[in-house]
């Protein structure tokens, strides 16, 4: 499949590759350059491959309360709640954002799970008075991220995201098309995201307009490569890499659960939801943690992790930080603590590292909560 403005990406990206069945731009100027652009200025991502499902009807809230883990009844329109979709054995089917749009809900989730989640929702929808609409292939999603995103948003839409809370959104009509402007992102930086449905010309014009108006802020188009290194550096999990369902059908508990993933904050045990019972019975043996290498090397998914010559887990995603250290997320013995020494086997050589607390950048200097801009 192709993104709507595929031809522009094809012409401008230095590397394109398949991701979740889409021909995606991986980098334009280079992963490192784009990564630093987002940390220092502002970057523009076309992430229209992401999935969106509209849930409407009388039981829409009740339906989503049961199918996702967080309490989505509280956030007012228009705003989103980070939530999780679990299977009945407690494992993560996907991570998602549930937008309360007032008269309906929009679930935004990962491209790799587009078909799976739509089927899952459809399966349960027959027990509720709800209508499920898969918008994944029509909805555009442009993500603008970085410390200069705020100024750019003001200039483009006259919206001050400083006045908005994280995950708050506004619906505007821009040149004849309804756009949801959401204060959200996946890079650790401040930023906003645009959800809209439009024809090719509109999509292309808006993309070029953002690049044009962003010029004075040093904007650059950014690909999936930098999106991945940025989210790892921020310490965020990615479904399919760090969080997943392994479909361990013969056990009571599947892997990886929100407790194992350290995503407890997205669980609301005051209500009923699919997977709740399994979580209540889980004895935690392994957990997603974050590590930083002391020696040179790039940790990759699947690299084994050792403590005292014993394998205690493996890397789930890894990359290099801005400062050039090997960093990443790992699924390891739940008894490990921040500061513990570990060894990661990279191509046959054991490299020393330690368990750390995310993010991997200095939050005083980078990220949405930086002290100086």
């Amino acid at each position: 499949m192709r993104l709507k403005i595929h031809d522009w990406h094809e012409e401008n990206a230095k590397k394109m590759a398949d991701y979740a069945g889409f021909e995606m731009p991986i980098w334009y100027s280079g992963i490192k350059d784009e990564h630093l652009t987002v940390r220092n200025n502002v970057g523009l991502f076309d992430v229209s491959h992401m999935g969106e499902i509209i849930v409407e009807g009388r039981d829409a809230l009740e339906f989503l309360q049961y199918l996702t883990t967080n309490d989505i009844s509280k956030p007012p329109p228009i705003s989103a709640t980070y939530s999780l979709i679990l299977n009945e054995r407690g494992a993560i089917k996907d991570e998602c954002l549930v937008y309360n749009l007032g008269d309906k809900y929009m679930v935004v989730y990962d491209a790799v799970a587009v078909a799976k989640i739509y089927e899952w929702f459809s399966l349960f929808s027959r027990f509720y008075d709800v209508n499920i609409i898969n918008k994944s292939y029509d909805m555009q999603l442009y993500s603008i991220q970085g410390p200069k995103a705020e100024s750019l948003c003001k200039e483009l839409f006259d919206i001050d995201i400083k006045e908005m809370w994280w995950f708050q959104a506004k619906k505007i009509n821009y040149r004849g098309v309804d756009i949801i402007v959401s204060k959200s992102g996946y890079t650790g930086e401040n930023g906003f995201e645009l959800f809209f449905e439009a024809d090719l010309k509109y999509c292309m014009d808006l993309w070029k307009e953002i690049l044009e108006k962003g010029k004075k802020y040093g904007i650059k188009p950014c690909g999936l490569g930098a999106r991945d290194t940025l989210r790892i550096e921020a310490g965020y999990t990615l479904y399919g890499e760090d969080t997943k369902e392994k479909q361990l059908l013969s056990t009571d508990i599947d892997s990886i659960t929100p407790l194992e993933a350290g995503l407890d904050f997205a669980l609301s045990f005051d209500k009923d939801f699919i997977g709740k019972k399994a979580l209540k019975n889980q004895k935690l043996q392994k957990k997603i943690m974050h590590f930083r290498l002391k020696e040179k090397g790039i940790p990759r998914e699947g690299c084994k992790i050792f403590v005292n010559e014993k394998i205690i887990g493996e890397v789930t995603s890894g990359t290099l930080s801005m400062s050039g250290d090997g960093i990443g997320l790992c699924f390891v013995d739940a008894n490990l603590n921040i500061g513990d020494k570990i060894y990661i086997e990279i191509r046959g050589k054991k490299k020393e590292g330690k368990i750390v607390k995310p993010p991997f950048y200095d939050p005083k200097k980078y990220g949405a909560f930086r002290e100086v801009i």
Partner: protein
Amino acid sequence: MIVKEGLYYTKKHEWLKVEGNTGIVGITDYAQEELGDIAYIDLPEKGKEIKKSEEICEIESVKAVSEVYSPVSGKIIDINTELGDKPEKVNEAPYDAWIVKIELSNKEEIKDLMDKKKYEDYLKSL
């Protein structure tokens, strides 16, 4: 895409410069662009004997790991240690950032490699 005159090329995108009995090896502009930001080069040991098409070392970019294969047989007599700290030199100037120098044990092997024109045609066919 730069392809330099006077060098020999492999299908795996290594270049070889011959100076007397010494072969200098690096990766091509095409290879560095395909790899993207090079973050780490696992440099080999000096003195190691290597056969043609054997792996010299691994190059890691932020996104991928790729092997560098030897265009010729011989003994590794020098390694570019500068690349240990500054692997990005390969992105910046792939034909200056050599990786190893090999004492050629069989000069006949050079005949199997491509010249500029042949390598350019090969790139077009990809």
